[in-house]
């Protein structure tokens, strides 16, 4: 499939990347096989795939938490396997994980956000500035002095985003950030991420099982058994029969649009979210 992001500056490149894991009894499990991928600055990318398709492995390769068994992962031209670059790569690619509780390091919200910036040895004034900016960007400014473990799941995840933002990353990778959240928590987190992408031009890569969330992405990549099977705008991916063949279900709105298009109705085939549908029906 066409690799997008070629006209924009590519900040992430995977070249022939494979990753194997050793298992008991000298078996190896192939988590990723020969992946070639490029992600441009400012893109909002969704990654979907069944459990075990390699999504988490891919995410961890992006900030040198894991190194490829073969091939290269380049972040702004820096090779993740070079030890000298790892610190800078980790600063440039922020990560948010699935479990909100296992990401809290400090007992106060602002200290939690400051942790990353402090590790960069910036001046205290600069650290404070970044903390304020990050908390503002995720909408948690008034919880500045609260204890993180008393926040709701959604707030904790936004806190994790703020903590990553304090390092001024170029890209944010989120591994199933909403799977442990309820509806309101999810919505707020997604709104926050969308804002960060549209207003602050932060590149965002999000792994999710929830197709409604991925429908707002610029680009949707579908992994299956360690390989990239689909890569394109969500409306193209959802409407392709290959999508369901891979064991995934498109969001309801996309299904409706697809049915209407197939029945010959005049409807914009790019509609995949509820907002888009509402806007189309009642402009």
């Amino acid at each position: 499939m066409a690799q997008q992001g070629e006209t924009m500056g590519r900040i992430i490149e995977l070249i022939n990347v494979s990753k194997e894991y050793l298992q008991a009894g000298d078996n190896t499990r192939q988590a990723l096989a020969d992946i070639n991928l490029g992600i441009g600055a400012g893109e909002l990318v969704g990654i979907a795939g069944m459990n075990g398709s390699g999504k988490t492995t891919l995410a961890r390769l992006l900030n040198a938490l894991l190194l490829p068994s073969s091939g290269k992962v380049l972040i702004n031209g820096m090779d993740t396997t070079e030890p000298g670059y790892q610190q800078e790569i980790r600063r440039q690619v922020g990560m948010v994980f699935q479990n909100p509780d296992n990401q809290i390091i400090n007992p106060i919200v602002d200290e939690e956000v400051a942790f990353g910036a402090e590790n960069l040895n910036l001046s205290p004034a600069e650290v404070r500035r970044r903390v304020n900016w990050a908390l503002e960007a995720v909408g948690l400014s008034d919880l500045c002095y609260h204890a993180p473990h008393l926040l709701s799941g959604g707030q904790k995840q936004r806190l994790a985003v703020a903590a990553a933002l304090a390092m001024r990353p170029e890209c944010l990778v989120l591994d199933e950030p909403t799977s442990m959240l309820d509806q309101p928590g999810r919505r707020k987190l997604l709104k926050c991420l969308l804002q960060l992408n549209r207003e602050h031009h932060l590149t965002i890569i999000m792994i999710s099982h929830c197709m409604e969330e991925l429908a707002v992405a610029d680009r949707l990549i579908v992994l299956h058994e360690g390989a990239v099977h689909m890569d394109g705008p969500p409306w193209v991916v959802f409407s392709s029969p290959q999508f369901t063949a891979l064991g995934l279900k498109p969001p309801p709105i996309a299904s409706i649009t697809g049915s209407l298009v197939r029945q010959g109705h005049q409807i914009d085939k790019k509609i995949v979210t509820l907002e888009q549908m509402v806007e189309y029906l009642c402009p």
Partner: protein
Amino acid sequence: MSFIELRQVEFCYPRQSSPAVTDINLKLEKKAITAVVGPNGSGKTTLTRLIIGILPPDKGEIYLTRSPLARYTLAEVGARIGYIFQNPDLQLFCPSVAEEIAFGLSRAGQGPQWIKEKVDFFLEYFELDGYRNSFPMHLSQGEKQRLAIAAVLAHEPEYLILDEPTIGLDAFRKKQLVEYLHKVAGLGRGMLLVSHDMAFVNKLAERLISMENGRIQSDSERRGRLLNEG
């Protein structure tokens, strides 16, 4: 009389200003599939913990087949009601999958052959055959969940409570879970499902209870089950 009954139950976690659940009046029947839905913080999990007896109510009474719950030990309740935690990790503690299912079965005094047959049955029923000797923590989320359900069912409880069983599962595995739970219901057991996933709940529940802010907001029956969608 109902299998489980709650009267005017209220519970407040220590150091919290407002109660997690208040004014709960509920009757649950043994053979029915009931769902409790509501946003995070609405008190759903607290409700299940009260029913199973992990938490004692601050006010009100809870009855299990006519007797007050307080008279039962946790083990006695566990023998009658199987509880599947939101995080299956919390209830898996044996070195292998087969041992996990077999745990506690020796108490029935039926001999090793009987235990072996049971373990074999459940391994096959829940498609965990290939993992017989694996370490439970190495299984995927969906597999751990099936294991937890199998391990609990091996004790043949009369009723099941499942707390948010769909977390971390993709669409395919959620569908699988619905099928497994239908199978379990086919074995003649009722259950209480707690979930914030309405699509999942709609495929299984005959009765829907919604909670918000610690109170029951609505409680409705559904005539027959919805037809399964693809």
